[in-house]
């Protein structure tokens, strides 16, 4: 059973999802070591699908590994590398191993990766993939062929509140929700005003009742990494003043953490936001620090009390 679904449907507890670091070798123990900290806080952990168009251990393999380790996985599926047949096969195949959460997205282009000469697929787009996954959950392939003993999937997606056209982003998110998405992991947004406007638009139209919004918080240690995201990660813009704030700080490490904490406090205070999606590039215990500073109880405490975080004002 999807714990993530229970939390979204219950509606009381703060939800944390996180990203499993990419895995390129080793065995199950390697996955366990890399995912340990985020898994101790996150209700479910994303097994990413060749993020930034770089090849890694596959989404399906890592999702199954997480399940075997007792960590609830979210199978991330992007439309870039596989056609509709392969995407469906991955979702159904992972479900055989108990992977019920699926996060469907279009995906960065191949040119964002280290093999830009690769063929891009995009046989489906993100919203179509959401609908196809929802169909699988309801017991049919896209062709209409029935799936016997289909597992009930918990389908979600992503949206980028900060990328142009800004006025259209909420509508695109709504399209994914209408297609079947029950949670949206929002792309990291360094423009609080844009996130706020996006969330308000969805909330005012009742869409936050239908899907849990989980804005992403990225934990980094330096202005250099922020600058890299600004210039090299598609769809991410870090304002000059935000960059300068970390760059000019006496302690960049601390300034970068403070920035993430502020983002998290702001995001979680918005109506309709149900929790956070955390990506940790620091690997220094910052996930635990962030959760404690936000007043979010540990996973076990939240499970015990279905507790809604009371944020320090």
């Amino acid at each position: 059973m999807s714990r993530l679904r229970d939390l979204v449907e219950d509606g009381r507890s703060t939800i944390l999802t996180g990203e499993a670091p990419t895995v390129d070798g080793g065995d199950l123990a390697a996955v366990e070591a890399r995912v340990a900290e985020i898994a101790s806080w996150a209700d479910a952990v994303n097994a990413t699908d060749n993020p930034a168009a770089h090849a890694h251990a596959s989404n399906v393999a890592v999702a199954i590994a997480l399940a075997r380790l007792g960590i609830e996985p979210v199978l991330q599926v992007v439309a870039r590398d596989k056609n509709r047949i392969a995407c469906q096969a991955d979702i159904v195949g992972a479900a055989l191993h108990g992977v019920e959460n699926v996060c469907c997205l279009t995906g960065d282009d191949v040119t964002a990766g280290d093999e830009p000469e690769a063929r891009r697929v995009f046989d489906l787009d993100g919203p179509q993939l959401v609908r196809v996954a929802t169909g699988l959950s309801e017991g049919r392939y896209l062709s209409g062929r029935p799936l016997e003993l289909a597992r009930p999937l918990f389908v979600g997606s992503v949206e980028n509140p900060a990328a142009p056209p800004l006025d259209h982003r909420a509508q695109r998110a709504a399209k994914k929700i209408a297609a079947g998405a029950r949670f949206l992991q929002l792309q990291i947004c360094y423009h609080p005003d844009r996130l706020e406007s996006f969330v308000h638009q969805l909330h005012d139209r009742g869409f936050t009742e239908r899907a849990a919004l989980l804005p992403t918080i990225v934990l980094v240690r330096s202005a250099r990494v922020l600058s890299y995201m600004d210039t090299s990660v598609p769809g991410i813009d870090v304002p000059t003043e935000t960059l300068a704030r970390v760059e000019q700080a006496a302690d960049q490490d601390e300034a970068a953490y403070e920035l993430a904490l502020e983002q998290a406090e702001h995001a979680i205070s918005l109506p309709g936001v149900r929790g956070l999606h955390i990506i940790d590039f620091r690997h220094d215990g910052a996930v635990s620090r962030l959760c404690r500073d936000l007043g979010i109880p540990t996973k076990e405490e939240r499970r015990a009390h279905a507790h809604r975080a009371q944020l320090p004002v």
Partner: protein
Amino acid sequence: MGVVAFVEHAVKRPVFGCRMCGQCVLHDTGMTCPMTCPKALRNGPCGGVREDGHCEVKPEMRCVWLKAEQRSRTLPLLPPSWRAHFGQLRPPVDNRLQGTSSWVNLFTGRDRQRPDGWEERADAEGPT
């Protein structure tokens, strides 16, 4: 390529950059061809649009969907129903129709055939 397809391509290629997908949705997308998007997305802009509104894949090109979204609101003489269709969930492309005439496919209804598992839902439209 048949005669109709030849004529269609001759008309639509210079004006819209038509790729002859054979299942034209120009009327729903502000008369902007989504197949000119490097990812060939049918349902709106990806999350990679640059801060200046240009394409993630081709930095020199303005995002096709930025143009589509703007035109669907502002293009004069566009029937209101076409504007309203902008937010609809469009089905996956039928790759068998590549190179055929969308005019013929519209006339025969071939372009409205969907896979049996693609459920059209009443609530498919997002807010406008």
